């Protein structure tokens, strides 16, 4: 316990916790909408684009967070257009875009020397080495994502629950899809230092999936997703410090364990609360 308490005194641990909680909040809120729209894998697809973005940044000596953010957000917009205009199935569009991103990343890595070591931090996550600048950017972006969700709350909920009726009520489904996909792009980039690009989808999907099994209404679903996400990140970080295991693996495995407990216990939010 003494060791755990002392960990909170370290600057790197405080930075990791702060960034992790900010990212966890954005991922949890967005994840509930994406899971309910049956679009959970969009995070995984966009993560592959972020990989190319990171490679571009490292190749040209830019901050990878910025290059990944730029490329991912632009590609997220293109992905929506491909889905809406070309009449391609949603998962096919994700496969197209993600394979393009990964191929581009591999090409850039192969053209440069010494990139591989740096890339590993983004692929598998390395939150304990996060810099103050990265924490600040992460918190600002997380705040933007949360604010957009708050101010578009009715539109997102209505268009997710009943797109046709929402359209009739004057809420354009295409605009909602576009906004949510862009937000997913931003959130993927936020999560890449926390759990890595290969696991970032877990931050969006696992807390949301657990919450959706317990909640009786949408308010509870959002609240529970945030509680699951933040507690999994906090406990996962502590476990990684105590047991000397990678933080990304700790957070995701803990999240998956919580999901299994929720699934098999059949626990539900009590009525009339």
């Amino acid at each position: 316990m003494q060791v755990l308490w002392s960990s909170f005194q370290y600057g790197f641990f405080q930075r990791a916790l702060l960034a992790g909680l900010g990212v966890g909040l954005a991922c949890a809120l967005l994840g509930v909408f994406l899971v309910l729209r049956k679009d959970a894998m969009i995070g995984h697809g966009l993560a592959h684009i972020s990989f190319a973005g990171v490679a571009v940044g490292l190749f040209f000596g830019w901050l990878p967070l910025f290059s990944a953010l730029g490329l991912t957000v632009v590609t997220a917009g293109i992905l929506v257009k491909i889905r809406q205009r070309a009449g391609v199935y949603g998962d096919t569009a994700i496969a197209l875009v993600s394979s393009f991103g990964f191929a581009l990343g591999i090409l850039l890595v192969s053209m440069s020397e010494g990139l591989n070591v740096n890339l590993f931090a983004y692929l598998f996550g390395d939150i304990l080495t996060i810099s103050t600048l990265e924490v600040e950017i992460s918190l600002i972006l997380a705040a933007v994502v949360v604010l957009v969700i708050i101010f578009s709350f009715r539109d997102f909920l209505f268009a997710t629950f009943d797109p046709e009726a929402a359209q009739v009520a004057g809420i354009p489904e295409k605009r909602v899809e576009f906004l949510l996909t862009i937000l997913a792009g931003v959130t993927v980039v936020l999560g890449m230092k926390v759990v890595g690009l290969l696991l970032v989808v877990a931050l969006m999907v696992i807390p949301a999936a657990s919450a959706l099994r317990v909640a009786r209404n949408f308010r509870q679903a959002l609240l529970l997703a945030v509680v699951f996400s933040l507690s999994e990140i906090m406990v996962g970080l502590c476990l990684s410090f105590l047991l000397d295991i990678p933080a990304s693996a700790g957070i995701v495995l803990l999240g998956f364990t919580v999901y299994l407990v929720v699934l098999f216990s059949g626990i539900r939010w009590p009525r009339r609360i």
Partner: protein
Amino acid sequence: MPSAAVDKGRLDVPLIEVKGVYYSYNHLEVLTDVHLNVYSGDFLALIGPNGAGKTTLIKIILKLLKPKRGEIRLFQQKLKDFKDWSLIGYIPQKATHFDPLFPVSVREVVAMNLPQARWYDFWTKKMKEEDVIQALKVVGMENYIDERIGYLSGGQQQRVFIARALVSQPKVLILDEPTTGVDALTQEKFYDLLAKLNKEKGLAIILVTHEIGIINRHINRVACINRRLVYHGSHAEFCQSDFFRQMLAEGHHMIWHKH
């Protein structure tokens, strides 16, 4: 009977005007030169066989599909200029339009359709309480306000969707085969409720249906679509018409009827 002939002599302004609408999916024309007016107080049954274009026509009126030719006017405004969608309540087909596992309460479903609802209205229990409860009382579902929508029966769910449409104070309700998969008794109660809304609140109702028998006593106008408008008239005329007799003879199967 073309729409213009049916409406001849009416002085009031139609709430919905469909003028010479054409629509085709790829190269298959599903609507040809359809004219139809809907007035305040109408209870219009839109009938026709499967694939006749009923749902397509509804979706064109609701701006969900764009007609190839023709014009729609809602409340005397061209469709592209029409902004006040709260005047139109829409209840989609029951069986297909929502995920029963979606964790959303009756209260949240109804509040979704309040244009003025903000995020904090969903976050407190007092969420636009009066508007929501009032709409639920009309359909007799106020005791289920905190129930998850997926746990309700099909008939109860449809009542909640009517409450959702009513909460924005519409002047027209459009329902697309709302009772598919619902038992006969529940259907009858459901249509009684629609008749009450039509008579007491003066709501114009457009009902896409196959169940012409069960709604017979409530409707006052009938339009039959089979790619074009093959019959349009008052309910009384409809019951006297050869068209109706032919329908009965065919066991309610709709037929192609050229003018």
